[in-house]
């Protein structure tokens, strides 16, 4: 079992994270990953130039670690990898990578889904879009909170 949770201040390279997870997952039959990417447009259709993710010096990494550890305990998986960007993230760049490896696919799919539902609503970041309509704070939607509630 390995649990990796990391706060990344520079570029997040999902292909490198996948390679690391595959390397750890020798003997497993399933690796499921999710990569979140900064969108170039807002919900209202205006251009977004970049995202800014503020973080807390202690609680942010702690929240990533807690979510990763709880996924490892909850599902029949062998490896978890969570990497989250902070700072300025240009449209098109990766914000978050969440991956799980398991003997069989179902647990890996569920763990990746769980990781993202919790990261969206509980990872300690404050996110704003900077674009043609200025700077706008973005908070989880009711759907995000409802998704989180599915897991109890």
């Amino acid at each position, binding site marked *: 079992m390995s649990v990796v949770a990391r706060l990344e201040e520079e570029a997040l390279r999902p292909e490198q994270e996948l390679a690391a997870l595959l390397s750890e997952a020798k003997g497993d039959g399933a690796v499921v990953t999710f990569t979140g990417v900064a969108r170039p447009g807002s919900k209202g259709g205006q251009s977004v130039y970049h995202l800014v993710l503020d973080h807390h010096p*202690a*609680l942010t990494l702690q929240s990533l670690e807690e979510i990763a550890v709880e996924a490892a305990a909850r599902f029949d998986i062998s490896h978890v990898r969570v990497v989250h960007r902070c700072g300025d993230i240009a449209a098109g760049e990766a914000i*978050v990578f969440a991956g799980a490896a398991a003997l069989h696919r179902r647990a890996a799919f569920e763990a990746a889904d769980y990781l993202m539902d919790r*990261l*969206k*609503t*509980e990872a*300690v*970041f*404050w996110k704003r879009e900077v674009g043609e309509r200025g700077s706008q704070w973005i908070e989880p939607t009711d759907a995000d909170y409802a998704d989180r509630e599915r897991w109890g």
Partner: protein
Amino acid sequence: MKILFYGRLAEAIALELEVGASPGSSVADVRERLAAEHPGAAAVLRNERALSLVRDRLVRDDYRLAAGDTLEFLPPVSGG
């Protein structure tokens, strides 16, 4: 007493503020005073998903602040 703010609260109030709260004041006392002084931030300060911290630990509204405590107000978080 030093107070730290994050996210939209930092934008609306300041990253850091020194206030003259007397020891024994509760988190709720300080928050309501800030909400009165910064009406533009009142809704976020009072949001049920906002968090309060002392020494990197979550504290409840009835937590009594000691001299030298630094209180942190965190608006609702948003990752992913």
